[in-house]
């Protein structure tokens, strides 16, 4: 027999609603799932008799279903928030390991010496161009251009060395 079949009077239905609300309060107080109470509250609305007085009970039942959802969600958010510090610590540890491992990968890749040698080669080339460029017929504009290229190459070399050390 369904739990609604024995309910006859308005008082019976009002008492049943009280019982459901109390069950919801207990579950929420203990942070237990209250979905079964929500289902029963929905069934309450579908099974209660016609009439304005019963409509009011139904409105209360509907509000309770919504409140349970809101409170359950809020409680879960609070529990999630409590774990954040611990998670941040673990992530920091992981990032440190990753960063060391990335440096290791770069060393095994020989990327660091290759990058420095490539940059050094560009610098040497630019400085040689600068040295060879000073002839009696070189105009000021050409000299400036070669100096600028040499400065760029030296800056790049410095940046490369800084980035790998």
């Amino acid at each position, binding site marked *: 027999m369904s739990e609604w079949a024995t309910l006859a009077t308005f008082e019976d239905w009002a008492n049943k609603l009280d019982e459901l609300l109390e069950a919801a309060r207990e579950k929420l107080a203990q942070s237990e799932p209250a979905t079964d109470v929500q289902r029963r509250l929905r069934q309450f*609305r579908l099974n209660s008799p016609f009439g304005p007085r019963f409509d009011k009970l*139904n409105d209360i039942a509907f509000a309770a279903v919504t409140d349970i959802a809101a409170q359950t969600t809020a409680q879960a958010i609070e529990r999630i928030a409590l774990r954040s510090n611990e*998670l941040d610590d*673990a*992530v920091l540890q992981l990032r440190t390991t*990753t960063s060391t*491992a*990335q440096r290791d990968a770069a060393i095994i890749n020989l990327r660091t010496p290759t990058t420095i*040698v490539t940059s050094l080669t560009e610098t040497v080339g630019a400085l040689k161009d600068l040295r060879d460029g000073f002839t009696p017929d070189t105009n000021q504009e050409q000299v400036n251009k070669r100096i600028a290229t040499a400065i760029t190459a030296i800056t790049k070399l410095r940046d490369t060395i800084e980035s790998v050390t």
Partner: protein
Amino acid sequence: MRLKTPRHAITTTSILTLLTLLATLTGCQLPNVQPFAQGVAAIHAGVDQSGAIFQEAAASTLPPDSIHLKTLDQHWASRRAATAALADYADTLASIVDAGNSGASNANRLSNAVENLMSKVGAAGLVGSAAFQIGGEIYETVAQGLATNSLDKAVRNAGPAVAKTCDILIADLQDMLEPIDAVEQATLADIETKDYINEVKRLQAILARRNTLLDNLIQTDESWAADHDAVLPQIEALEKLIAASTTRITAVVEQNAAIAHAFQAKRTLIAQTIAALQDLKTSHTDLAQAIKANRTVSARTLLHSANQITKTITRIEQIRETTDE
């Protein structure tokens, strides 16, 4: 007074050291960590989607100015950072393995760069390409050894952090399941409007009336013909009302079923992501042992979980598109 070490002693010591090193490195087999990286990428997507689902659910049930919504936004950012860190870590492991497996080509790249430099300073041929070639071959073995050591160190150091991150994410996702259920109930209750509830009750009353008429008809079989003429039109009228009411109710029932289906897919994704995080923990421990034992590593379970996540995300997107239409 500082003693000078004889030149030949250094050379002998260096060669012996090199030979010993090479001997210990020979036979090192780098595990394939690519499936591990793929699994982590899927977990990253699964956690991200699960978070979005929970944020959507929270926004539908909490007031817009709720402090809890702001708290969730703030703290969920940490979860995104955590899965991004896991993904970076897994990619780095893959890049160590890559570096270890491409020692010869990396050594060649360096030798080309040095030769290029030598030619610029007018010293081409000083080092000699034969020397570089031998160096490249030796470095192939050395790189594998270095990568194995680096991988071992990284996996051992990251072990506790990976386990802790997985445990916290699993607890977070488990905490989401209950509110998702509760929000589903609230969403269903919202669709069951007063009109719908009255329609259900009206239908129940009409069905009861029709059944009574049918019962009466069967019980009064002696005067069947007379009753038949009087009652049958009433039953027919009630049947029409039942059909009309059923159509209206069915529309809401179908809507309810679609909502329940969508929520089920969301729950499935969260459950699959939890399972994948558990697999990740196991796979990571297995990876550490595999490196130590110089054996291959199987990430089949993790990859299976990752595929499931990818499929469910696609299903949720399809459901979303259908709902938007």
